[in-house]
């Protein structure tokens, strides 16, 4: 309402000009109203979906986390019992530890590899679009397909990786059947899938760096490493920040690869938080307990993301 009125007030002179401007003015009002309605109309479906399938379930999960419920019977309210039980659950703590171990392997690898690929993909070469598309292919593939592919490649019995190693006389490890190699196998598959995503975001960031900065540095005698450290990386920091936050959030929720490749095994060696949530909710009949785990995971992700947002002031440079 205020919008059109201010607009009218702002152009007092037009009023004197008779019918034509008035006609135009009421047209503007109608146009604005129509724009607002259209915006609301376009937003409504996604807002409703967000409310119904995201906010609603989150509130629902918080409520269920206070219940003892096996999906079949009637839920009983147990207060914070599920949360206090979580405090003493060694298996959950182990799963949390494995999730952090996964992040410790996955995050640096995917960032460094993503940056390396982005730098390579920036080069001026014939058929560069083809290379870019190739690296992006795993990103748009399904997690289950990628996990099955890697489970096959890393098959200790007759996988391509171990066969190749054997051809060079190197005995390959048991990969996902060996407790020490199960998590590295999952990390490997995940990095392979996500590196294209990180690279594409960083590539966009690289292309936005003004050429003259790099040229000036080169004139001053800066080498490749110097330019990377003092110009490329600082200029790239907003993109780096973005992919770090996203990768960390996704990394905390690692599930599909684990479920398909190891099922948390052998002997729980690669058990992660979301895998525990799924097991408790859908095979152990403890939906309330699983919901409490979800809420704890959510809180942890939120906390880590907030800390990152705070820390970014120290290292992210916005132009």
């Amino acid at each position, binding site marked *: 309402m205020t919008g059109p009125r201010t607009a009218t007030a702002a152009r007092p002179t037009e009023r004197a000009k008779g019918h034509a401007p008035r006609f135009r003015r009421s047209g503007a009002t109608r146009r604005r109203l129509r724009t607002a309605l259209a915006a609301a109309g376009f937003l409504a479906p996604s807002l409703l979906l967000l409310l119904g*399938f*995201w906010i*609603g*379930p*989150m*509130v*629902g*999960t918080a*409520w*269920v986390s206070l219940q003892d*419920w*096996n*999906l*079949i*019977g*009637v*839920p009983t309210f147990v207060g914070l019992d599920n949360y206090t039980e979580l405090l003493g659950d060694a298996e959950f703590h182990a799963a949390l530890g494995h999730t952090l171990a996964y992040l410790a392997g996955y995050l640096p690898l995917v960032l460094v590899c993503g940056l390396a690929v982005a730098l390579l993909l920036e080069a001026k070469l014939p058929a560069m679009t083809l290379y870019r598309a190739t690296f992006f292919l795993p990103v748009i593939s*399904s*997690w289950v397909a990628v996990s099955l592919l890697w*489970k096959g490649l890393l*098959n*200790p*019995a*007759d*996988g391509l990786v171990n066969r190749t190693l054997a051809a060079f006389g190197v005995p390959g490890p*048991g990969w*996902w*059947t*060996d*407790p020490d190699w199960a998590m590295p196998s999952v990390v490997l598959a995940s990095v392979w899938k*996500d590196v294209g995503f990180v690279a594409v975001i960083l590539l966009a960031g690289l292309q936005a760096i003004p050429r003259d900065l790099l040229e000036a540095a080169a004139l001053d005698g800066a080498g490749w490493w110097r330019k990377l450290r003092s110009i490329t990386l600082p200029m790239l920091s907003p993109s780096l920040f973005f992919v770090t936050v*996203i990768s960390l*959030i*996704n990394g905390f*929720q*690692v*599930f*599909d690869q684990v479920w398909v490749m190891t099922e948390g*095994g*052998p*002997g*729980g*060696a690669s058990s992660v938080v*979301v895998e525990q*949530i*799924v*097991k408790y*909710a*859908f*095979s*152990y*009949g*403890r*939906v309330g307990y699983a*919901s409490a785990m*979800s809420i704890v995971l959510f809180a942890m992700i939120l906390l880590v993301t907030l800390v990152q947002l705070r820390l970014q002031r120290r290292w992210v440079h916005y132009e």
Partner: protein
Amino acid sequence: MTTRRRVLAAAAGALAAVSLLAACGQDATGGTDDGATGTVTYFTFSAAPDHLKELDAIKAEFEKQNPGITVQVQTAAYDDYFTKLQTSIAGGTAPDTFELNYENFVTYARAGALLPLDERAKADKDYDANRLYPKAREAFQFKGRLYAVPSTFSDVVLFYNKKLFDAAGVAHPTADWTWADERAAAEKLTDKAKGIYGDYQPVTFHEFYKALAQNGGSFLSEDGKKATFNDAKGLEAAQWLLGKPGTVQPTVAEIGGKADYDTALFTSGKLAMWHNGIWQISKLAGTAGLDFDMVTEAGNTRKANAVFMNATAVSANTKKATAAWKWARFLGTSQKAVDTRLASNWELPAVNDQAAFDSYLKKTPPANRKAVFDALADIALPPVLDAQQSKMQDIVTQALEKAASGQATPQQALDAAAASVTALIK
């Protein structure tokens, strides 16, 4: 963003939707509406994928005898079955009738998901309780009431390849064998250069509880309040299983997660002894060139055989209670169901019907079909932990995996597992 997020979102969405639906569903308890005609849904894990034809034949006969009732069959693989069943019950879309096994039966009965059947059984003059195998009838009682009609049972035996035994000059297994006999034979039969293995027995909960019984041990204390499988007898049972992979049996890494690896190994004549269920008979008998027989498993200090029992339950929320009861009764006791199951080497009907079983015993291969019934003399039923069954099974299987992969000694793994299982008992 990625699938993982979507999976989580979907899971969260499902949870909320399910809680809403459950709230609605719960109001409609009772199932007192006496629907005698219409469509009855039936959810099963034992029919797919090998016995759908047989189930269709049983269904057709039932529909012929009961005009006005149509049965709609839904199937799922055993691994997904209970997840789907749970979710459909929570969502208020439970099938009218569904298959339950002994281990999971109590969970559903206690949660109030099943319709008590005693009154219907009493009122139905076509139902003769004595026709059912008594142990099976007992197994599906909860607090003294009948909650499911027993349908089938099956047991686990030792299948063996006669050709491999003869070629290695080893005497065929007998019912008097002990673990030591089996181990000695397995070692002689294993010939890794030719890709031949002597033995195959999964290292899992189900094998462990049975081996424990074969060793005279007990899984829980007498009052059921404490896990006792980590004693000397339990350790020996665990070592019996753990000693096989890598010596007379391929390791987990050698198997490389291939589905039905053991089945393929046995049917291709590269496995001398195979611990598996009698549901494999139809496949083995149909494999050309496979000369096999079977015998009850070796005991250590005593004989003990794993028996699986299935039954048909009626949903507490069904609107077709009368028709559902008729279908459950038909699946369990009708001549058509009994004959169909026996003729196709499906799981055995849980009935007292010697005449029917005689015809089954006469068929070969295997020659020693009697072992199926001999096994019933020494039954070791799995321990049942009420609502925590799958968690308990996972704890034990995971402990064995830990020991097998060297993350803990067998004793350490059993101790930790026993402590976790004791903590589950409330």
